């Protein structure tokens, strides 16, 4: 929104020289000087992207290059750089925490500010995972914030949202076993038992498959596993999730991170609902 007449005049002159056709149209419609017309002043916004990048960028130039290639979402290049660093004898854990993670952290913070978008997070996550795999191969497991499973309800093939949720959970330091889509309750229970899962995240987008989340939450409870089910996806509402036990509703992938943080911090589903609703 234009707030100041000087800026407006300046912008109008700029439009006139840059795009005379548009300028003429705007003048003809008599709308150029009206409030509500966004001429787009972006100087402030641009500065902050650089600030965020600077905040996380590692001092070490080889680490900075790895972090940059994660931000750029380049998987092949990230793997190359990480392999080279490992060859030089760098510590795998140090590489993950101080070279790969800063990249995704930058992206996540930019996302929170509205300066990065989901596809970029997905690509950065993909690049980071490529690097992490190499490090893991060198040195067993890397410390994680908790162990989770994600799935899409039985009968439903819509997995784009679930993939985003899984990527953002991973980007936030959780170990995620992704069970995929069209997953029957029994498979979730089996995995929860065998893998020591702390929380499951379930998604569904169709009204006909919602019931799968309810049965999964209830069966997890009946089996006495103390593994709550976080539920989301377009067909799922809070009102629906509140009709069954052992479940917490979330709308966005960031809600999934919040729920997972609470659950892995030791809270049970009732406490998490109280905390977050």
């Amino acid at each position, binding site marked *: 929104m234009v707030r100041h007449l000087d800026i407006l005049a300046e912008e109008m002159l700029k439009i006139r020289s840059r795009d005379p056709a548009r300028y003429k149209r705007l003048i003809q419609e008599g709308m150029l000087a009206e409030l509500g017309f966004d001429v787009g002043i972006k100087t402030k916004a641009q500065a902050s992207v650089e600030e965020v990048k600077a905040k996380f960028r590692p001092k070490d130039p080889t680490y900075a290059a790895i972090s940059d290639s994660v931000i750029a979402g380049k998987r092949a290049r990230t793997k190359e750089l990480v392999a080279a660093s490992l060859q030089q004898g760098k510590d795998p854990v140090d590489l993950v925490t101080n070279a790969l993670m800063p990249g995704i952290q930058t992206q996540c913070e930019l996302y929170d500010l509205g300066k990065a978008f*989901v596809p970029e997070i997905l690509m950065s996550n993909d690049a980071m995972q490529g690097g992490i795999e190499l490090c893991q191969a060198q040195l067993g497991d890397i410390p994680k914030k908790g162990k989770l499973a994600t799935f899409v309800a039985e009968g439903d093939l819509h997995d784009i949202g679930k993939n985003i949720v899984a990527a953002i959970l991973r980007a936030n330091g959780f170990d995620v076993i992704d069970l995929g889509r069209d997953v029957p309750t029994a498979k979730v229970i089996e995995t929860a038992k065998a893998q020591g899962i702390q929380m499951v995240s379930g998604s569904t987008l169709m009204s*006909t498959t919602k019931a799968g989340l309810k049965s999964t939450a209830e069966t997890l409870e009946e089996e006495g596993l103390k593994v709550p089910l976080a539920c989301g996806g377009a067909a799922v509402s809070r009102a629906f999730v509140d009709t069954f036990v052992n479940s917490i509703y979330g709308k966005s992938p960031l809600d999934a991170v919040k729920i997972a943080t609470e659950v892995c911090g030791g809270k049970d589903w009732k406490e998490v609902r109280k905390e977050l609703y």
Partner: protein
Amino acid sequence: MQAISLDIGTSGIRGQLLDVERRRVLRTVITSHNPLPGANVMDHLDFAIERGPDLAHEVLLGAVRQVIRSLAPDRWGRLTVCGNPVQLSLFEGIEVRDLAYAGRNYLDSRGIVPPDRSGHVLQGDAVGLDPNVEVIVPPAIRHEIGADALAMMIKSGFLDDDLCMVTDYGTNAEMAIKVGDRVLTGSAAAGPAIEGQHISAGMLASPGAISDLMAIPEGWQVMVLNEELKPCAGAKLSLRGNTLKLLGRRAQGITGTGVIAVVFAGLEAERIALPRISGGGISLDRNIRFTTADLLEAGKAIGAIRAGHMTLLEEAGVDHGDLGTMYMAGASGTYVDARKAQAVGMVPASAKKLVQIGNTSLELAKDLALDPEMLDRLNSMTKELLAHHIMFASSPTFSNIYVQELAYWTEGMPWEAYERNLSELGIRTATPRARDVTVERRKLTDIWDVGESLTMIDPGVFLSGTWSCDLCMRCVRACPEGALRCSEAKFLVDAGRCLGTACRRCEGACPQKMFSYSGLSLENYPEGR
């Protein structure tokens, strides 16, 4: 001999009485809506699964009988149908659960076996009609390759063309591309926004619906459908000034083509800066606003269609620039301003010729009624198509593109980032838009030929129930559609007006927990009502 052809659509039934010898349409009857509760095939499936396929079949058949009665046939011996696989299966009263759950695990664990849906001929009594009538049902293999999809390919001219695409602009957005002898098909499940549903002031194309916005020197002219469904002038608005002059025909809501026009105008006038509308919504008439939430719905639908088109182009190995004609089918495809549709992304930017072809489903039903031997050809065509069908559900290309669409429409990701990300993923993107695009409105109305008359009827199928309660009428008042009434302690639901599973406000409003939607049964109305 006379024959009847029917197009059973998700938003209504269209029927024609035909003179077989003289190969002519005598008259046309359409219903104002589909008789099943709910607004889309999923709601219809939900109803069929919850209440049993027999009841859903009976409801649909009730409306079909009304259409036949209104067509008033004389010495008729044949009925042909066309439509999507869900409606055709409900019409026949066969298994539909395999259409509702595409996931194999679910189907296997419940022992659901998909029925044989290849084209066949039945005796009328098999579907509850006169045994002397021969009923011809074309193939309807899966959601995406049904008789309606065949119709759009056969009746548009698509099959005789090369490097062209066709799309049925409806809820399921079936689409196909033809390269040489190869035809690849898919379905983008765009959702009902482009038919004007799930939009806060949305409505189907009917009198009072905003169908277009036309540029005028002062801003934009709202076009509203009149009683004959012709667009006429309504309010004038200035999008930049956010002012509205109430003139002309008063509007009641926005239809799908209107939604496309508002998105186009909003972007053009820079009131829409994705993902938001500045000034909190665009007023189009008294109490009619197109909101930011509506923009997100429309964007997700347009995005799914564009992602589908790009996936087909990618899988066919075609450069966007080589694409020739785009055939636009279905009511939305016929009435939408084709250039606006292309500008917002519903038509590939590189298509050089846009041909609007009307409702092809009813035409195929007619062809089949006049030449029943055509059934064999349809069956063999379906087999070939199945071999080249791309399930978008398991296509990483579709997923990758749709994620960019989501970010573009709902997060405001710039277009440059969209193109950059896709080229990083190795997916071809749209070349600069085609110049000198030609538009051919081959059909001005969706029904090609109505014959001597066109009548619209209400399907008038009711569900009823009785129980003893306080008769406080809260349930009746709670119904947002006015679909429920109560007379002499009998509760009557107008099935086609009811919103179905997604609503159930009547039940929720009952203080005594007496109202039972699942206890309602088909009301048998006296003949001729």
